[in-house]
């Protein structure tokens, strides 16, 4: 019997819940994924594009959704709630209510006939009410699971006892009005909460006229308007007159940074969200004019400032720093905005559409959930977690990730999800496992050398296909194709009966290739592959013809042409099937040890996460002490003690039996690949040692930029924040009075040579300013800044500082504060600082006793060397470039290598801890396996044909192919190849091929396609 305690319950199936589930399942943990709505996916499917890459949201999410649905260790419970958690960490019992769906998911084939017939129209929640849906529906078209559900609040039969139309039209008898809610108890070792956020409802903001004015929309509604799959098919039009707007205003901080409604926090994502929307809107229509009304632009993430710059300077988005006082609707539906500039000037301007950039707020029901689960919320109603334990709730064994404990964007949510997993697995007793374990081994039939014997099954899909395509005709035609031994039409190819029947036919006709003409291979290929595998055929001897999604559904009014096309598609599939060969997924052994490079907070945290899960870790540090930058941090905004935490962490590291710390050590060379790395290390005394390990975590950190601006280095009164913090800690202030203290932000950040925001400096300066106030109550504080970027809950400390009387002076890169020594010959002279006050529109001169600079965070120079050794990329700023900025934020494209901490980008302690745990957790998804399986569809080299020219090596994004210089030929690393085929198409010599998509197979497809010549052309 399986140990139930080696399972985890994940609540909420947004991107965070999905990521947590996938990571756990990859480690061999059984996962129960609980979701309240009828689909997994959360908020991401509602988004059109994602910043700062403008990636299509659904494109990047849907592979993860399918993976989640397919994973044998993940059980998805849709329309379910978590009611109670009892027991102790490692042994919880969770009570879950699964609400009635009224449609049997086993029988439902997602044909949609029910929805078409259903007479009840209701607002579509997914499209923010901008479109109608029915009482029986799918949550959205790409829902997973794809089966329909009935909304009992609106269904005529369930509310009034009449109708039953859906039952009448359902071809599979899937409707079950008698369905009941079910209560189930699940025994798990840990719980991860990922319930996400709700968008702020601006209905209470009367001055903006939301709901009263039809052309005032929220940013989420606008997102649906932008989406190609949205209610307007991607054509942005105003609700009032269905005309495209020419001028759009975005109003920032609606429901954020607002003490009056008890939301004195920054929602962190809305600035970027608005910038993205303005760019996308301008891409829709070049003439469109977009203006963003803001207080500070908080583009603090990796590559965000470049995106902001692009919006302003390339796309011409107007950024207007001002407060919008109110909006008046004009006849015709346009909107007049009244807004105030910093200097008090008031302006009126008319826009066609106004988008309210609404903030993020705690989920409705989170109060009740917190009571049910006995966890604490913070004062804004988000789940509470502390600086050093950012992924833990107040109840041991229950972890939190995503935006549930504070506003986060997508990559931060993904990071926190993987990070939370690291906490959860500590409570489980995981063994290393074999990937194939659990699957029944069927002896595979050897088909090599056999003549192809193809079986064709053409699916009716009820009337979904057969209603348009003459299915019998197609099946009959297939009988005449070369190598086809058997062909028949079937009602539902994916039904259990039919799958059994396919197995029988394979036996009966000794089939060695199978073609199913039905729906899309994206959803059903795995199912059919499993089926033929069960009949002893290699799963790759299968091909699908998509005659539903890409034929009958798309050509509903052209039955003859659709039938002809179906015949072609089947012929092509048979053409390919004929040339299919069995493929093997070869196992790649995984060394159970990990190498962590960098002994700062991130490296140590990552090492602990891996070692706590039972794996040996080599922790390499080039210096002779652990702790990195954290050794210079003495205070936290929330009052917690960084030095105490650091000391505890170092003690844990040093006493951990699984961690070997290699101090004063330099890496000379890293060879190998996922599961099989070899690293040559040189220690302080010059001795060399070779380490073997399965994964690498890169945590090389960063350092304070060495500036020469603002008299730094020439005056004893000009110091950096790092130095200032130590001064505050040691209370060794400069001699004399400390009355006038000037802070200058963005020293080296956000300008030529370093076009990024260093993210932590605003909060750090606010923190140190507050410390100063507590120690020197009489000090006057002057803050020179560009945008104050105290995102998230740091906002409250910024407003505290403002309220305490500190003065803030915004400057621009062209108008930096000017500094000079009052007595130029005296290095201890006070510093005369000239600040321009944009409110009063005049210069303010301060003779500062101390000038505190907030320099940028620089990546270490040795990153370049490491990047070359590991064949991993750096971005233009010298920061490591992850595999995908949104959904793979700690992975590299090259498997088995992970990144965290400042090496990835500037971030604070909490964020470093979360990311370090995430890197550890991602590493464990490999380490917890004895071996992984290489892809089946990977490239292969015909050695005799290869000229060793290196085209392939250059185009491979995964460093999976290399020219062996001795032999002069390309060598593929099966472990790293992802099977895209970019190298194959680059190969001039025809020496490369992609298994499963060989030239021969693809040629045979379009040979089948060849068009008859018109008669008489000889």
């Amino acid at each position, binding site marked *: 019997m399986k140990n139930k305690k080696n399972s985890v319950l994940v609540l909420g199936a947004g991107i965070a819940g999905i990521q947590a589930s996938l990571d756990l399942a990859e480690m061999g943990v059984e996962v129960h994924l609980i979701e309240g709505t009828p689909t997994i996916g959360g908020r991401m499917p509602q988004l059109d594009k994602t910043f700062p890459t403008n990636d299509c949201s659904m494109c990047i999410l849907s592979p993860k959704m399918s993976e989640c649905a397919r994973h044998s260790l993940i059980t998805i419970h849709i329309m379910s709630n978590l009611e109670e958690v009892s027991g102790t960490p490692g042994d919880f019992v969770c009570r879950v209510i699964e609400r009635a769906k009224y449609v049997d998911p086993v029988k439902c084939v997602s044909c949609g006939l029910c929805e078409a017939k259903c007479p009840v129209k209701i607002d579509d929640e997914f499209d923010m009410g901008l479109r109608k849906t029915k009482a029986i529906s799918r949550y959205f078209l790409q829902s997973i699971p794809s089966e329909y559900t009935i909304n009992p609040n609106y269904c005529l039969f369930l509310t009034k006892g009449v109708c039953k139309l859906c039952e009448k039209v359902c071809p599979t008898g899937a409707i079950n009005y008698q369905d009941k809610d079910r209560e189930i108890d699940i025994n798990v070792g840990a719980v991860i909460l990922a319930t996400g956020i709700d968008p702020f409802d601006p209905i209470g903001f009367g001055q903006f006229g939301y709901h009263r004015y039809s052309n005032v929309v929220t940013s989420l509604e606008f997102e649906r308007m932008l989406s190609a799959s949205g209610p307007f098919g991607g054509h942005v039009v105003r609700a009032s007159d269905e005309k495209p707007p020419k001028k759009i205003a975005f109003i920032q901080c609606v429901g954020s940074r607002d003490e009056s409604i008890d939301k004195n926090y920054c929602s962190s994502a809305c600035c970027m969200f608005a910038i993205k929307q303005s760019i996308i809107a301008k891409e829709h229509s070049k003439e469109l004019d977009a203006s963003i009304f803001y207080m500070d632009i908080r583009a603090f993430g990796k590559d965000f400032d470049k995106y902001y710059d692009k919006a302003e300077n390339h796309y011409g988005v107007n950024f207007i720093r001002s407060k919008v006082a109110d909006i008046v609707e004009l006849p015709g539906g346009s909107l007049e905005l009244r807004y105030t500039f910093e200097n008090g000037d008031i302006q009126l301007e008319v826009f066609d559409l106004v988008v309210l950039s609404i903030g993020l707020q705690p989920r409705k029901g989170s109060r009740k959930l917190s009571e049910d689960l006995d966890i604490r919320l913070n004062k804004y109603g988000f789940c509470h977690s502390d600086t050093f334990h950012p992924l833990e709730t107040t109840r041991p064994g229950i972890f939190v990730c995503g935006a549930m404990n504070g506003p986060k964007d997508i990559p931060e949510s993904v990071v926190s999800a993987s990070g939370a997993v690291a906490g959860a697995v500590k409570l489980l007793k995981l063994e290393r496992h074999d990937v194939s374990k659990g699957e029944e081994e069927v002896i595979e039939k050897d088909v090599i050398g056999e003549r192809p014997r193809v079986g064709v099954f053409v699916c009716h899909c009820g009337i979904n296909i057969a209603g348009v395509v003459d299915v019998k005709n197609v099946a009959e035609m297939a009988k005449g194709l*070369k190598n086809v031994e058997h062909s028949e039409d079937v009602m539902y190819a994916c039904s259990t009966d039919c799958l059994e029947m396919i197995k029988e036919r394979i036996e009966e006709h000794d089939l060695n290739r199978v073609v199913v003409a039905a729906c899309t291979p994206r959803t059903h290929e795995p199912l059919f592959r499993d089926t033929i595998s069960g009949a002893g055929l290699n799963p790759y001897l299968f091909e699908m013809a998509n005659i539903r999604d890409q034929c009958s559904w798309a050509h509903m009014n052209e039955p003859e042409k659709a039938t002809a096309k179906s015949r072609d598609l089947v012929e092509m599939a048979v053409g390919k099937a004929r040339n299919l060969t069995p493929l093997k997924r070869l196992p790649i052994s995984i060394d159970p040890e990990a190498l962590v490079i960098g002994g700062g907070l991130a490296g140590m945290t990552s090492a602990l996460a891996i070692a706590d899960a039972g794996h040996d870790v080599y922790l390499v540090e080039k210096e002779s002490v652990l702790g990195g930058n954290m050794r210079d941090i003495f205070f936290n905004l929330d009052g917690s003690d960084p030095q105490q935490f650091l000391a505890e962490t170092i003690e844990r590291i040093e006493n951990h039996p699984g961690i070997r710390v290699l101090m004063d050590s330099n890496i000379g060379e890293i060879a190998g690949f996922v599961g099989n790395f070899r690293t040559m290390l040189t220690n302080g005394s010059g001795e060399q040692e070779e380490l073997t390990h399965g994964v690498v975590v890169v945590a090389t950190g960063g350092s304070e930029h060495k500036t020469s601006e603002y008299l730094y280095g020439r005056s004893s009164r000009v110091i950096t924040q790092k130095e200032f913090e130590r001064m505050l800690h040691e209370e060794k202030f400069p001699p004399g009075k400390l009355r006038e203290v000037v802070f200058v932000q963005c020293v080296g950040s956000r300008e030529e040579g370093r076009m990024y925001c260093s993210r932590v400096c605003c909060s750090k300066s606010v923190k140190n300013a507050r410390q100063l106030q507590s120690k020197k109550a009489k000090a006057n504080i002057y803050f020179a800044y560009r945008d104050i970027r105290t995102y998230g809950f740091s906002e409250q400390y910024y407003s505290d500082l403002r309220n305490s009387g500190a003065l803030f002076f915004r400057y621009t890169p062209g108008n930096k504060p000017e500094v000079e020594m009052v007595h130029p010959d005296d290095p201890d002279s006070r510093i005369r600082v000239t600040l321009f006050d944009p409110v009063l529109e005049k210069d303010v001169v301060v003779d500062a006793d101390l000038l505190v600079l907030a320099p940028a965070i620089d990546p270490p120079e040795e990153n370049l060397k490491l990047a070359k050794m590991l064949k991993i990329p750096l971005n233009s700023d010298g920061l490591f470039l992850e595999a995908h900025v949104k959904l793979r934020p700690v992975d590299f494209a090259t498997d088995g290598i992970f990144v965290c901490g400042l090496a990835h980008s500037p971030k604070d302690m909490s964020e470093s801890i979360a990311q370090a745990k995430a890197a550890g957790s991602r590493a464990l998804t490999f380490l917890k396996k004895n071996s992984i399986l290489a892809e089946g569809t990977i490239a292969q080299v015909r050695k*005799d044909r290869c*000229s060793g020219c*290196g085209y392939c090596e250059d185009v491979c994004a995964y460093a999976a192919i290399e020219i062996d210089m001795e032999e002069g030929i390309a060598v593929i690393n099966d472990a790293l190849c992802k099977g895209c085929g970019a190298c194959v198409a*680059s190969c*001039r*010599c025809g020496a490369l091929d992609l298994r499963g998509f060989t030239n021969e197979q693809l*040629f045979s497809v379009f040979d089948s396609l*060849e068009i008859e010549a018109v008669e008489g052309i000889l």
Partner: protein
Amino acid sequence: MSSITIEKSASKGINDLLRHLLSTGKVDAVLAMRMMPDTGAWDLALVTDVKNLKELKPLAPVMTVNASQVLSNLSLSGKKIAAVLKPCELRAFVERVKREQGSLENLFTISHTCGGVFPLDLVAEGKVDRLLPKYEKVVSAGEIPSNIRDTCKACEHFIPMNADIMVSAAGECKPGEGCMIYLNSDKAREALSECTGEHGSAVLDSTSLEKLATARAREREKLFSSIEKDCSGLDGLVNIFGKCVGCHGCSRVCPICYCTLCDFESINFDYNLPYFEEHLARKGALRLPPDTMLFHMGRLTHMSFSCVGCGMCSDVCPVGIPVAAVFSRTGESTASIFDYLPGRDVTEEIPVMIFKEEEFPELG
């Protein structure tokens, strides 16, 4: 730029230079054109013994094979070789080095301003010797001889790019100027520091070549527009390539076709009977060997952006297809969309191996 002036004709001067390099042990071997004694036949010779140097005619307007092809493996042997290359051969070699088919490390590349080469049929007829005096006269007048390869007439890259050593051998010469040798690399300057002749500093006087450049440009336009006329559209292609006998000689002599085995001659394109049956069932007739157009167009996608226009392919075509003209014309277009110039610089990356994140906005 450092230079050496030898008070001899260019062809004698270059022989002195080679003798110096070989006799002082600066190189282990010399590669250059040779006229076989007594026969009047030509070949490319690799010489290690000084006494055989006299047979070499390094500047002869003959290309029996694009030297970059034979140089590939030689250059990887570890021996130091001085190779006398025509500018297009040098460019082709640079293209090959980019494809790991050779190395510049142990080479002294010697090239010269080029007046063009005779087609192989004239060479085969043994007429070169007889035609040489007139050729030299015309070339030194900065004009285009009428009997050289068509692509040579139209070649605008007759000044070598990045040769270690460059010899002035074409263009309007001033009488008695002697043999001008330009040294472009430290390697060359070091090896020739002791070479006899007047050492100095000079740059190639490009004004003396302007006339030739103008004439070449005019010829190029003429050649390309005639190709455009004859070889345009499917009908034009069928017209021109209809004569193709499928010998694939053009790819075999092509310096850019470096593949060990051409894909189009591989099993990938080796159809079996069922394939023919299917095609015949559809069309009722089939040209054999098949894939004539696929071969030529395929080759255009494989190598045209690197085509140096040496003209070997046209010369070996048994049925007189102007392959080189078609390929260098298309090559000029395909290279230009990537701002690429084949052979310009060994560090310039091959366009299909790289990309820019933002380019070709008109596509997609």
